């Protein structure tokens, strides 16, 4: 179908390569992005679970936050920059070790989730006082405006979304990556290392959003384009589009911002209490702490759960969940999981119905379809711990 807005869409530095590879391009987060390649969503998904899938995620929001009066002050400088960012997120950033990353959430004053993001403490004395942050593409402008406004005069934010950010995910990712970045295979999950590639500095992080072992690489377009092209000549590597990225993350039980969480949900409802470390709970000094600490103590009214439809019909986002004819929740992500070879979903239900095994009905096209609340993930995580 013709999309009249295509001309206003941004392009990543890998856009021409996607076209060369025969990708089907769609508007996503303000960018024209590959939703699938000729291999197709299902095969791309299965390939990532058994080999290595390469994803262009340059539409996301990588950035660096650095103390305005200069970085390089060692632990003290880290403590200073951590104290700033901790006014916006409920995770323990001060306690990060050098090279360690943490998933967290950006909160509004009511404790609602503005975004989920990964914050990394850099390696090396001279880099302390800065943080490497990756926010979601769809909300990066709002996130960055909030960060800049909050730390005016104290810290400087440098956007890095003009670079290539790509992910290599799957059980063969480490083998492939070690050919290009020797030593990166030793990294553990949620750790990173800087590398030099043809005189260009890149950041290699062991993380991803598929549930598989894998890496994300931030690299300049000049060094990144030949790197990605060369990786794709490896028989173990195929390009993977947003379609499979979505089914992979859903099988892995991971939230998609704007769908499984948004400003109306707090981290406790979203089943992300684990992002709030003990130190932060004790201090209760993050935005919306009152609501969030109450939800932690009393339990939330609604909670995010996994949903296993018992028939073959997928239940998509927006499907109403009923019990005994009464609406008790809503599906926030739903589709088909190629690895489990069955429909799968996530959504919110009343807290009393969150126990795995609870029988629910999914109202698909006016018909009640039987389903059960289930534990997440649908496919076990395969992270390098």
């Amino acid at each position: 179908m013709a999309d009249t807005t295509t001309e206003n869409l941004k392009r990543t530095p890998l856009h021409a390569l996607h076209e060369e590879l025969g990708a089907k391009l769609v508007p996503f987060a303000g960018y024209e992005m590959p939703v699938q390649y000729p291999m197709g969503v299902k095969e791309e998904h299965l390939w990532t679970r058994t080999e290595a899938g390469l994803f262009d995620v340059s539409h996301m929001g990588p950035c660096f936050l650095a103390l305005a009066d200069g970085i390089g002050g060692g632990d003290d400088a880290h403590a200073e920059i951590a104290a700033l960012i901790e006014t916006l997120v409920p995770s323990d950033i001060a306690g990060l070790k050098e090279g360690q990353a943490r998933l967290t959430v950006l909160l509004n004053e009511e404790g609602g989730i503005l975004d989920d993001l990964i914050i990394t403490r850099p390696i090396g004395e001279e880099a302390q006082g800065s943080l490497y942050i990756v926010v979601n593409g769809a909300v990066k402008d709002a996130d960055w405006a909030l960060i800049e406004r909050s730390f005016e005069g104290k810290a400087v934010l440098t956007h890095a979304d003009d670079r290539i950010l790509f992910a290599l995910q799957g059980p063969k990712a480490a083998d492939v990556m070690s050919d290009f970045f020797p030593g990166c295979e030793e990294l553990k999950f949620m750790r990173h290392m800087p590398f030099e590639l043809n005189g260009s500095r890149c950041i290699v992080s062991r993380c991803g959003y598929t549930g598989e072992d894998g890496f994300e690489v931030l690299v300049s377009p000049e060094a990144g384009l030949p790197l990605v092209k060369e990786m794709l000549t490896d028989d173990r590597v195929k390009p993977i589009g947003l379609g499979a990225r979505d089914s992979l993350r859903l099988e892995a039980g991971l939230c998609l911002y704007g769908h499984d969480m948004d400003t109306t949900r707090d981290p406790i409802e979203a089943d992300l209490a684990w992002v709030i470390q003990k130190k932060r709970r004790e201090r209760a000094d993050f935005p919306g702490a009152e609501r969030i600490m109450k939800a932690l103590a009393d339990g939330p009214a609604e909670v995010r759960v996994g949903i296993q439809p018992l028939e073959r019909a997928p239940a998509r986002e927006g499907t109403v969940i009923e019990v005994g004819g009464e609406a008790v929740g809503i599906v926030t992500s739903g589709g088909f999981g190629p690895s489990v070879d069955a429909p799968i979903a996530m959504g919110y239900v009343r807290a009393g119905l969150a126990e795995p095994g609870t029988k629910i009905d999914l109202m698909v096209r006016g018909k009640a379809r039987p389903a059960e609340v289930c534990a997440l993930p649908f496919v076990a995580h395969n992270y390098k711990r």
Partner: protein
Amino acid sequence: MTTYYTEDHEWITVDGDVATVGITKYAAEQLGDVVFVEVPEAGASFAKGDDMAVVESVKAASDVYAPVAGEVVEGNAALADAPETVNEDPEGKGWFCKLKLVDAGELGSLMNADAYKAFCDGL
């Protein structure tokens, strides 16, 4: 038997007053891997353009519209357990349902194979 096509990428093969309906190869390719098909049950009646069936890929659900008015004589029950048939043989074993036609005159507004090919080439 004559086969007609719609702008919504359905085919309809008419044999007497009964027509077999499915989605075209072009539609199946656009959808990608079909993981679920809901076909109508025998006895259901549709006006031209009504939602008649649903076909779902990994990514999304799409409605299939009745290309002409009719009453369902048979739905393709085999698709419930083998939805991938729609990808493998969309214009053969992947048929959706058989309709008893209400007004054969409605077929006149549909495309023949050549016109449909030209239509797809223009997309």
